[in-house]
């Protein structure tokens, strides 16, 4: 029964072949349909940016900025454009949150998230301050980044190897790391006495008129992160693992390795953010940085990252952080009572997330 005869193709088979050859005569080739003019290319690029997170939220942010600026010019009791406000709020707080959002966002694209960001900022900042006081500031920088990376790699190992959902694993670990920072330091604030005789302060929190050093750090980190996420094979793997782990596995991408790399990237970003915070405030009390966790994740979501993985962009994460803090700033400048600030902020985050979900469907 298994002898192979000289198989003549059956009529059905050859007719299938005819069916598929037919349309090629008239159809337009993809290779020829690429736009040739600069305007055409720009139009195509904008078309394919639609629904991928950053474009729409950037337009909204631009509108808010224009609105705030006009209000500020017309009405002096809304001091948005003043020197102090731009330097003190926009370029001091936004970069820290944006750097955290980049870390949280890259991890979200890989399909996981980490709820111990706040706890690890505290631990890393305390390590930084104590090493800076006891040793020197170069060593302190290395120690702070190494601490944060170790914290998130340990979290990552727990999530990856036990397959516990990252929600519960990192929530539990956030208490552990807060406890660890109290164990290291006690409940009294760690105070930074000297830091590089002023040079260090200048590098990490220098005041340059309308902007501060933190903004330069954000630009540097943002550009490097953009190249690695959007133009490097590492980034491609992160998207593949978060978007469809089975498909990634089928092309020999190791999801566990990519996820651990993403946890390490988050750790690096948290370390930088912890240094920026510690140098600016010159002290750190354990257990006071918990808010950063959800703010960073909210910034990433507002910036177009999907909680289920596979979607998001560096530009979107930065805009997300800027949007949240600018709205908060506007509410405070507009003299909204304290509890209203939270009310509007929460509403904005939810509306932005719904808006992103809606725009996702428009992506082509």
């Amino acid at each position, binding site marked *: *029964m*298994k*002898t*192979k*005869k000289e*198989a003549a193709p*059956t009529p*059905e*088979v050859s007719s*299938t*072949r005819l*069916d*598929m*050859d037919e*349309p*090629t005569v008239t*159809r337009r*080739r*993809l*290779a020829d*349909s*690429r736009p040739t003019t600069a305007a055409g290319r720009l139009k*195509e690029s904008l078309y*394919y940016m639609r629904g991928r997170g950053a474009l729409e939220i950037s337009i909204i942010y631009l509108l808010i900025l224009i609105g705030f600026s006009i209000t500020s010019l017309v009405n002096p009791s809304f001091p948005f454009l003043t020197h102090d406000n731009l330097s003190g709020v926009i370029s001091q707080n936004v970069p820290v949150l944006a750097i955290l959002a980049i870390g949280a966002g890259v991890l979200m694209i890989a399909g996981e998230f980490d709820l111990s960001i706040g706890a690890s900022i505290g631990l890393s900042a305390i390590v930084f301050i104590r090493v800076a006081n006891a040793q020197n500031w170069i060593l302190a920088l290395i120690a702070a980044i190494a601490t944060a990376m170790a914290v998130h790699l340990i979290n990552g190992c727990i999530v990856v190897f036990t397959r516990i959902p990252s929600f519960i694993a990192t929530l539990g670990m956030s208490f552990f790391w807060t406890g660890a920072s109290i164990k290291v330091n006690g409940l009294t604030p760690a105070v930074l006495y000297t830091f590089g005789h002023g040079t260090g302060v200048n590098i990490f929190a220098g005041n340059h008129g309308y902007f501060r050093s933190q903004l330069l750090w954000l630009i540097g980190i943002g550009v490097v992160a953009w*190249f690695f996420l959007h*133009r*490097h*094979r*590492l980034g*491609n*793997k992160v*998207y*593949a693992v*978060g*978007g*469809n782990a*089975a*498909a*990634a*596995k*089928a*092309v*020999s*991408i190791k999801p566990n390795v990519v996820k651990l790399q993403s946890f390490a990237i988050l750790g690096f970003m948290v370390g930088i953010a912890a240094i920026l915070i510690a140098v600016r405030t010159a002290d750190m009390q354990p257990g006071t940085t918990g808010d950063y966790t959800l703010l960073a994740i909210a910034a990433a979501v507002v910036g177009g990252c*999907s909680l289920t993985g*596979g*979607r998001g962009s560096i530009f979107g994460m930065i805009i997300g952080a800027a949007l949240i803090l600018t709205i908060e700033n506007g509410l405070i400048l507009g003299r909204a009572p304290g509890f209203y600030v939270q009310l509007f902020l929460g509403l904005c985050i939810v509306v932005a997330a719904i808006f992103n979900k809606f725009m996702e469907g428009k*992506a*082509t």
Partner: protein
Amino acid sequence: MTITTLEALLRLESVTKKYGPNTVLDDVSLAIGRGEVVGLLGDNGAGKSTLVKIMSGVVPMTSGAYYWQGAQLTHISRPETERRGVETIFQDSALVPSMSITRNIFAGRELTNRLGFLKLKKMDAITSEILDTVVHIEGIKSARQLVGSLSGGQAQAVAIARAVHFKRSLLILDEPTSALAVRATEALLGYLVALKAEGVTSVLVTHNLHPAYRVCDRHIVLNHGRMILDVYREDTSVEELTAAVVEGADGVRRYRQGKPFS
């Protein structure tokens, strides 16, 4: 069996797979010859998917041996089978919907410079070229389109285009037609026939007999984890295969005695 050990591209010998107390595959031996289109048939739960996973190297076998071009693979893993050119197109999960066609085609095998940065323009151009020449997919506007915005048939075609571009030697399609419309199914089977002419070997896994019957040179039927039929198209009929899939070995016996369906 006309396929000798040497000719066989892939040969499995006495493969058994157990999940806890359940035996999913029981002593299955089969060979896939170079340039063949083989239909792997069976009802839901017959063990088709497990066999596919073993062939593509994502699931280890409990016992048995895996030969590639006559040489035994001792450490079977996905990177090992991928290096040899086994490409599995799992239904719905072959591609990443949130990535562009280009990035999907080159996922894991990106064209990069020495530092690992992507050559996106070059990859876009190659993608447009293969979409134009290898698989003639209608309705795709650009290589930059997200795979999530394609229809099921278009996405399958993209997955096949990828396998062809990277000169994969064995193409395993897991239920490729179950979510497709009639026209898309015809187009997909057409690709397989065209690829066969270029020497690509493929395994078509399906419980949908009629389209498979026309394009496959040989049919292998699984029933409750056992291989009950391994037969060339010329020696069988849709009716016999139906009996085998539905009723197992008994069905085949009854059919050959001229009493189809008890």
